[in-house]
């Protein structure tokens, strides 16, 4: 006989948002079920590789004692501006990064996410994997009352459902919380390889003294063929995560295949030596929502809240997402606890969650950089032009030609004018400033 499965709360999706929500609610005694479609929690998850500890500490103050599976602490971070055959590097390395736990670590999600899910299980959450949620169940007034899974006798009921389904937010769309499917203009595709390499080689190549040091480099310019986007090079314990991310629209417009862009980047004369002798171990791709603050779905409706990538919670400029997701999941969980105490699951009550996010870095940052995607969209030449320019300037600056320095400076100004008028440069800078200031 079919049994009616009833819980205090349902979480859809075992990413950082969903797991943080489930952990928060289970810890306060709510009977919580987390439903994940992957073979295990983390099976569908994938990212560049930097995890910020502040969001984990907010969720689990004693996380360090629970031995999270981190790769390397970040002790050097920065940017490389890549031209077709050269690079200008600007990175920051500091002894101040060296404290335990560090501010940020490189992480492999297939290891980190199961660990986080285990913490949620320990807190009492029921984690069910290999089960997909097909749709959200609503009563006659539209209030969300549960979900239907793809299992026989698979309906689950709860007064509150937290949707953390990830970037491909079909449930959010079907509920009408967002009108449109993800437009290719506002979603990035990142492809990544994990190249396995002995730790001593990684340390020698990146100038690291041991496993207690690690580097995270974001790379612009020729890495993405001068198109808007970034590439990255992160050091893991015994491997390097290397990848490129570009808006889907760019791949479509320029008829590029993601793996070709990555292969081109890997063969760049500056990049290639870092990978020499490494064995490609894993290849993966994932979408990243870059919809921005103004195109977020409604975050709460009767009986339901949305968190993480499903709600477009990504700060692309600072390559942050998991920390936003984890914070949002925690806040959604806290609101669900209050809703249970008040016995009120209405949209009005659950909007507390949106308020909490507006008061936190999550929506403050997203609001500040609300114009960033538009900026790149309307200034597509930006990365390519200035990355090449910087490299050409460097070459001129660091070579002596037996001419007075004043002439060299004039030549440099001339080089800029050849590429972009003074008016164009001024316009680019004003646009950039505006995009940064929100």
């Amino acid at each position, binding site marked *: 006989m079919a049994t009616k*499965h009833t819980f205090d709360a349902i979480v859809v999706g075992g990413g950082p948002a969903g797991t943080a929500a489930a952990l928060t609610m289970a810890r306060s005694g709510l009977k919580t079920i987390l439903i994940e479609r992957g073979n295990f929690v983390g099976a569908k998850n994938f990212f560049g590789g930097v995890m910020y500890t502040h969001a984990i500490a907010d969720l689990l103050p004693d996380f360090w004692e629970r031995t999270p599976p981190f790769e390397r602490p970040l002790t050097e971070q920065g940017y490389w501006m890549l031209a077709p055959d050269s690079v200008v590097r600007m990175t920051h390395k500091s002894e101040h990064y060296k404290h335990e736990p560090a501010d940020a670590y490189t992480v492999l999600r297939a290891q980190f996410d199961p660990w986080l899910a285990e913490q949620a299980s320990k807190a009492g959450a*029921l984690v*069910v994997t*290999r089960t997909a949620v097909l749709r959200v169940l609503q009563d006659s007034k539209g209030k969300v009352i549960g979900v239907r899974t*793809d*299992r*026989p*006798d698979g*309906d*689950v009921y709860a007064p509150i459902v937290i949707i953390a389904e990830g970037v491909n937010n079909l449930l959010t769309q079907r509920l009408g919380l967002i009108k449109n499917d993800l437009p290719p203009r506002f979603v990035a595709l990142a492809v990544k390889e994990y190249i396995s390499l002995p730790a001593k080689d990684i340390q020698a190549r990146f100038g690291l003294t041991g496993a207690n040091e690690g580097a995270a480099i974001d790379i612009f310019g020729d890495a993405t063929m001068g198109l808007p986007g970034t590439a990255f090079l992160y050091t893991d314990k015994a491997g390097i995560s290397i990848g490129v991310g570009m808006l889907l629209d760019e791949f479509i417009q320029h008829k590029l295949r993601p793996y070709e862009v990555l292969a081109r980047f890997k063969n760049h004369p500056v990049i290639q030596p870092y990978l020499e002798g490494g064995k490609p171990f894993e290849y993966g791709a994932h979408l990243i929502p870059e919809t921005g603050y103004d195109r977020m779905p409604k975050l709460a409706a009767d009986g339901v809240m949305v968190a993480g990538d499903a709600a477009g919670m990504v700060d692309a400029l600072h390559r942050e997402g998991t920390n936003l997701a984890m914070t949002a999941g925690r806040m959604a969980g806290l609101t669900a606890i209050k809703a249970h105490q008040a016995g009120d699951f209405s949209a009005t009550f659950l909007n507390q969650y949106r308020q909490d996010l507006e008061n936190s870095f999550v929506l403050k940052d997203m609001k500040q950089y609300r114009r960033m995607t538009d900026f790149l969209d309307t200034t597509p030449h930006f990365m390519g032009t200035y990355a090449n320019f910087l490299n050409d300037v460097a070459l001129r600056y660091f070579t002596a030609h037996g001419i007075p320095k004043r002439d060299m400076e004039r030549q440099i100004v001339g080089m800029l004018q050849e590429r972009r008028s003074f008016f164009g440069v001024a316009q680019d800078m004003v646009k950039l400033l505006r995009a940064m200031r929100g």
Partner: protein
Amino acid sequence: MHSVVAIKQVPDTTNVRINPETGTLIRDGVPTIINPYDIHAVEMAVRLKEQFGGTVTVITMGPPKAAEALIECVEQGADRGILISDRRFGAADTLATSYVLAHAIEAIRAEHPVDLLLFGKQAIDGDTGQVGPGVATRLNVPLVSYAIAVESFDPVKRRAVIHRKIEQGVEVVEVSLPLLMTVEKEIAPVKRAPLSNMIKAATYKPEMWSADTPVQFDITQVGIKGSPTIVGKAFTPPPREAGAILSVAEKGLRDAVAQALTMIGQAHVVTVDLHV
């Protein structure tokens, strides 16, 4: 009705590699799965439970990680999972493994009589197919190997009619209960587990048995001590060379065929007189 299913957690051999120096499987970082035949054995037991009531017990011998496999069996409808795990059981061959499983089953049936024992026909990491028959011999119960269908099963009259795959076709066997079956995948297609089983399995903790609690095993018969098998050499056979291509366009049909027949003759495969 009480069925006991013995399963094994194995490396997913679809992406397994061999260490060229030792000739053994590289198990590090290779995902593990339930031996594919074994999950069908579980399914068969669950179907009989659905028909006649009763319980399904699943046992396995393996490292602590093998608990995952038992939990997956609970998802598929098993009621009880027992993990027999002890360092002293390590490096067991099929003789030692069949002793441990048979001894465990004796303990289980002393508490709760067993009508049916189910095994997969073989494990994909060893491919011996010896453990099931070994346990049947030790327990002195009828063995039906390579079973593909249960035509009838009567727990009251204590009789079953089972189809088994043999080289010439299918053999239909009538057998008395309790019996031991080793099964092919055809025995029962695996159904998608209902959500209630998933919820039950999410918090299920299999029982852990060591070499001395709750059952005392004879230490001389387990693990490497109880395993007379000696692996002389394990190697990867050299890849086969590509075959010769005789172009009809270049040589003409007659010459090409003649040359092909000569080559076949030289390989001592067959001799042919050509009358074209």
